[in-house]
């Protein structure tokens, strides 16, 4: 009875989404106010019913309702409660419902904030969001209904995939979805601007905080996924260029470019067609990601069970929504052209270069990810494009970008004397190079060309980001930085830290595989590891062999590590739980292998220097974004420029008394 309520709620939500799409857009087109104002109420209604449907599905998991097929496939009565709630997004149908919920939430937020915008524009934004919502809800209802019954009901469930029974895996999809779906907001703003035929600096001011908001969640979501892969999959890698990973990274790259392009549009009123195109591209890539995970077109560790019928529906959705907006763009973009000069050395110029390089990086990743499909479709056979390709080509646009990044942060708008720019930063550059040459040698005893290049890049960006904050802190008379400026420097600082972490860990990771018996000790990277013992432990839904290892350095005890080899009762494949002693400076990573007979076990130990800087860098990036998005100018209502100038003039006059 209750699952059917959920289904009914979905149907209602879909109807409301269609209303939310059709009425405001038609109203904006024809000038009918009574239709335009429906947008907000339709959006609210849609949210209520999507939330209801989502709650019903969660309830079905919590009470172990195995008559619902989705619950039977992804849960089990022994599954801990927290994971039962998380299991809602552990499979295709439920994760789609999560998508809809996130979109409804974003829509609600946009609706609430839209009071300060002209009605025609706001209705169009909500209307476009309504189209997306309706599309996804229709897809859910027609091909991926989470409330399908399983009759007769299963006696017990299939259990959640053991790999997903983990805190980071619980947080990763929701964060990622908030980010993915959030890209629909700047998309809706862009399409609304194209429909209205007007795009000004106010538009950029509205759009930017939403974009940064979605970007923050995307950053955190991707970082969580990377961190989870590192400690859960047991072999110490943190990025695999898997198609679905790439599918989350590409919107991030476009989102980054979009944020920078919006900065220029907000300031100078130029780059408008770039900005609109980037907004459409970012969301298109989000939809593309959804398509890739669920259609079976590419092989990925993340793929949900594939189904050509579902794939076809999503493809149609993608072509309709993105294709429609790009056709609109083709007709209307020339109206956006605006005058505004700048010179070779200027902030605009650096942003332009930055965006071109980001687009190239994104294009290369897209091309590499899809190439096996192109190759096969053209009849040339199966092909794999993996790490070796991506690691090599990604650096081609990224190295120049990182170098320019350090300079661009300090460039003035419109034009700047190159000597001034170089003069400010040249000693930083030299320092970065010296540190990059010295540090690996001193800390790790060796070095290499790529290592020096990588560390130079990271230190360069780090120092460049710190220059302004530190110099203003030291000079008490200097003007204080605005919150947005703080955000910018901190976000770039995060990038620098990330690059340092990635370079150092790639260069100096040490892996060892040993066959050891209880009581034996061996050495890695200056640490001593002793295999103290082995015992059997039981978890709520698994049994495991647990090893006890003692980590020491120079005789001093550091930590006890207890890696496990688990077998879950329902899904019987063995799973490795690694044990990690983690510090900012290094991780020591121990994983149990196989019993080799005769009391010996194969044990993998890894030393990963500075690997935490990778995720710490991402967190700092997100923090910077948060600061930038909450700057005062976004929290104040929009005023006319003339009004602001008049007021500033008044204050200046008063201040001089």
């Amino acid at each position, binding site marked *: 009875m209750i699952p059917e309520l959920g289904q009914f709620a979905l149907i209602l939500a879909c109807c409301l989404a269609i209303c939310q799409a059709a009425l405001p857009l038609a109203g904006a087109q024809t000038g009918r106010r009574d239709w335009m104002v429906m947008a907000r109420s339709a959006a609210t209604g849609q949210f209520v019913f999507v939330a209801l449907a989502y709650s019903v599905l969660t309830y079905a998991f919590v009470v172990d309702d195995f008559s619902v097929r989705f619950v039977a496939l992804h849960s089990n009565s022994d599954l801990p409660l927290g994971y039962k709630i998380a299991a809602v997004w552990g499979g295709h149908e439920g994760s789609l419902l999560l998508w809809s919920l996130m979109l409804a939430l974003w829509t609600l937020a946009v609706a609430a904030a839209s009071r300060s915008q002209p009605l025609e524009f706001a209705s169009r934004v909500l209307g476009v969001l309504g189209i997306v919502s309706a599309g996804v809800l229709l897809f859910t209802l027609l091909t991926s209904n989470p409330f399908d019954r399983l009759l007769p009901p299963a006696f017990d469930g299939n259990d959640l995939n053991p790999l997903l029974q983990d805190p980071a895996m619980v947080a990763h999809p929701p964060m990622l979805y908030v980010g993915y779906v959030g890209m629909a907001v700047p998309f809706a703003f862009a399409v609304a601007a194209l429909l209205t035929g007007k795009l000004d600096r106010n538009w950029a001011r509205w759009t930017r905080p939403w974009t940064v908001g979605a970007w923050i969640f995307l950053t955190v979501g991707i970082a969580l996924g990377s961190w989870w892969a590192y400690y859960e999959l047991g072999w110490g890698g943190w990025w695999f260029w898997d198609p679905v990973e790439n599918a989350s990274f590409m919107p991030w790259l476009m989102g980054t470019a979009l944020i920078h392009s919006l900065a220029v549009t907000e300031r100078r009123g130029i780059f408008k067609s770039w900005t609109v195109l980037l907004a459409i591209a970012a969301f298109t890539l989000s939809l593309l990601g959804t398509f890739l995970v669920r259609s079976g077109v590419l092989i990925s*560790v993340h793929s949900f069970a594939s189904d050509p019928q579902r794939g076809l529906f999503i493809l149609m959705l993608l072509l309709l929504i993105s294709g429609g907006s790009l056709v609109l763009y083709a007709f209307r973009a020339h109206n956006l052209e605006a005058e505004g000069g700048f010179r070779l050395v200027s902030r605009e110029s650096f942003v332009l270069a930055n965006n071109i390089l980001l687009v*190239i990086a994104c294009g290369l990743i897209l091309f*590499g990810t899809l*190439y096996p499909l192109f190759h096969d479709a053209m009849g040339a056979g199966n092909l794999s494009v993996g790490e070796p390709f991506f690691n090599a*080509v990604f650096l081609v646009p990224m190295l120049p970008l990182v170098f320019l990044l350090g300079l661009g942060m300090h460039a003035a708008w419109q034009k700047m004397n190159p000597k001034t720019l170089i003069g400010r930063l040249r000693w930083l550059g030299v320092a970065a190079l010296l540190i990059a040459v010295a540090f690996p040698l001193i800390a790790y005893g060796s070095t290499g060309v790529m290592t020096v290049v990588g560390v130079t890049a990271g230190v360069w960006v780090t120092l460049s980001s710190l220059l302004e904050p530190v110099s203003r802190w030291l000079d008490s008379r200097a003007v204080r930085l605005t919150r947005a400026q703080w955000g910018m420097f901190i976000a770039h600082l995060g990038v620098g830290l990330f690059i340092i972490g990635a370079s150092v860990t790639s260069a100096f990771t040490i892996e060892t595989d040993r066959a050891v018996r209880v009581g034996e000790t061996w050495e890695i990277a200056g640490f001593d590891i002793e295999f103290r013992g082995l015992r059997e432990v039981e978890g709520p839904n698994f049994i495991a062999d647990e090893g006890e290892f003692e980590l020491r350095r120079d005789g001093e005890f550091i930590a006890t590590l207890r890696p496990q080899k688990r077998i879950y009762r329902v899904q019987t*494949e*063995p799973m490795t739980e690694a044990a990690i002693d983690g510090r900012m400076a290094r991780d020591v990573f121990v994983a149990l292998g196989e019993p080799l007979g005769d009391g010996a076990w194969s044990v993998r130990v890894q030393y990963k220097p500075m690997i935490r800087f990778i995720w710490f860098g991402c967190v700092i990036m997100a923090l910077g974004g948060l600061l930038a998005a909450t700057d005062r100018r976004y929290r104040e209502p929009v005023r006319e420029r003339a009004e602001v100038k008049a007021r500033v003039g008044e204050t200046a006059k008063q201040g001089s008394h």
Partner: protein
Amino acid sequence: MPALTRLRALARGASTLAMAALLALGAALNAQDIVEGFEDPELDARYRNLIHEIRCMKCQNQSIAESPIDQAADIRRQVRVLMVDGLSDAEIRAYLAERYGDFINYRPPFKPSTWLLWSAPVILLASGAFVFARVLRERMGQPLDEDID
């Protein structure tokens, strides 16, 4: 005999079925453990790099370094044999491609059907430089803003 060994015997018998089930449910196969190596550190480093570039044919996008299944272990053993025989990385990749097809190598080969792929970075970079130059030239000819907030 640890409980684990008893269950493993059971799991082994159903391994193919479990594999198929996992594949169907879209699971990531767990990273594994026996990555055998060489005593010589240089050879070992080369081996580890190489096995990360070879695909596990039965897995959903994992290298033979990460894959837990037997077939991956077989290929790893073969790679070690070939390394001892003195084959270079490129020769080992060619050996495997001869038997399994290009699909087994994560590093796409250089051949007519992949020239576009490998030349993409240069082509895109050149296009990007062209676009940059064009936009800049246009903007350099335009007046600067007199007053800016």
